[in-house]
């Protein structure tokens, strides 16, 4: 609740006073989450960084140019824009026939670049399993447990009902559980 009120105050400052510092504070709050959100989708550090930068610039432009539009939550807005930017990124790659390894290996493929980092075996396994999940399952799982968003926020970002999100979460966890059991 406190976080939401703080975000709304910062949003108010941006919309009414065009306060860059307030936007800077929101950037600090969301940069890691958005990077991770994008990284899970593009699996490339460089592209994640570029797309994350683009997301924040687009959010700023949206807030300044669409002052009359109501923004209920900053998280909803920033994740929606991030999602759209990722979709545009894929489209652009498809047009130029640049099939990125990340997309080709979207589900079920090992990404060695991703796993070059040091992490224990268990986490490595769960990341592999998440990668095996359906795209929408991945989104919901990462938004909920990695980025700590509430179900209502995820529902807003993904344009689905909260019940639907809970069902997806349940199914995703069930699927992960089956993967874990198979691994044993």
């Amino acid at each position: 609740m406190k976080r939401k009120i703080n975000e709304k105050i910062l949003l108010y400052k941006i919309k009414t006073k065009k306060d860059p510092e307030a936007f800077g504070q929101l950037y600090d709050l969301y940069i890691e989450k958005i990077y991770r959100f994008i990284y899970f989708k593009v699996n490339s550090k460089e592209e994640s960084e570029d797309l994350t930068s683009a997301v924040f610039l687009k959010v700023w432009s949206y807030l300044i140019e669409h002052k009359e539009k109501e923004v209920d939550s900053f998280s909803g807005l920033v994740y929606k824009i991030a999602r759209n930017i990722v979709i545009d990124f894929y489209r652009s790659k498809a047009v130029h026939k640049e099939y990125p390894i990340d997309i080709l290996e979207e589900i079920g493929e090992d990404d060695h670049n991703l796993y070059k980092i040091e992490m224990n075996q268990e986490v490595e396994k769960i990341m592999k399993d998440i990668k095996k999940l359906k795209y929408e399952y991945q989104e919901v799982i990462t938004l909920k447990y990695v980025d700590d968003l509430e179900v209502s926020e995820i529902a807003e970002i993904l344009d689905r009902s909260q019940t639907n999100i809970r069902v997806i979460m349940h199914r995703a966890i069930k699927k992960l559980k089956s993967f874990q059991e198979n691994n044993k």
Partner: protein
Amino acid sequence: MSREIIEKIKQMKNYNGQINPDQVWIAKNREQMMTQIKNTVPEIKPKFNFKMVWQAIGIFIPNKIVYNVVRPLVVFILVGTLTTSGWIASVSATQNSLPGELGYSVKRATEKTQVVVASIISTEEVEAQIHMDLASKRAKEIKQVVVENKNNSIKNAQVAMVDLEKSIQTAEKKIKSVGETKPEKVLEVSKNVTEKAKEIKENLKNVEVQNNEIDTNKVQKITNEISIGAVELVVKKKEEGKVIISEEEVKKLVSDQIESISSDANIVQQKAEIVADQIVAVESLQTTSTTEVATSGLSMLENTVSTKSLVEGTSKTVADNIQQTEKSLTEAKTLVENNHLLEAIQKVKEVTQVNQEIAQAVKETQKAVIEVQSQINQQNLIVNTTTNIGSTIPVSTTTNIGSTTSVSTTIKIEEKN
């Protein structure tokens, strides 16, 4: 099992590596982004508008509620408050306005509304009180108009005088109606009426002294009538047993009326004395004027004759009536002592009538005297001007030339020194 999986997922973000962004990149990217967005911000700070208020409220309340409930409600309250306070402020600001001023029509409109509302929701005794209050207000206005003596003060005073008469007449009807329908309320109404009548008379007391073109006799008459009428009603209802009031109290009410009319008689007597003095002054002026301007003396002599005859006639009437008034008042007091209250009131009524006649006679005499006085003054002015033209002008011119020269010489000497 599910919990373990969830815990593992949550741990993912704690590991360094590509899944989490590089802290150096975060800082660098922030710097770049801030530079970029600062360039898009105009230096002029945005001005305040009401949308900011709704957005600020939206921080704590969901936007849907803000725009669909809070905003209409606030606007409604604001408009209501502004309208009401504006109206109240305007109306209260006009409460001190006088006839002839801009706000006076608003003041009268408010009062008329008050009367209409009272006629719908109030009892007749309250209505009588309201009309007496209004009459008292008018009397105060007349006094103020005369004291301020601005343009059209006579006309404005007359406007208020007409309204005052109407208010008293309406109040009189209401009192009669109260006497018939609610005799138990007669005492309360009577007290209020006599009190207000006293205020009205007090305010009008010096109006004629300040401006003798204003005639307050009629208003004084109806004010006295309503006051005496109210007391008479109390006495009658007491005799009928419909009003509970002690002998002493009712006697006091009648005695107050006798005192009041006695005071009026004294005022009229004083006015008569003032007019008598004016007559003497005019007579002496007439004598002087006649000797000075023998040629134009015909019209003056005519005036002298007419004024004298009027004055003699009036003086006789006044003297007779004052004598009669004093006699009647003494009789009225005796009647009160002997508990013949209705007879005493009848005497008071007679005295009021006589007093009114005296006041009227004095007023007319005064008018005649003033008219003659102004004519004499006019004649004297013509005579004086003719005399001045022959003698004063050459003398004063010579004096001026001499004095101017001497002054300029003095200045030159001072400059040389």
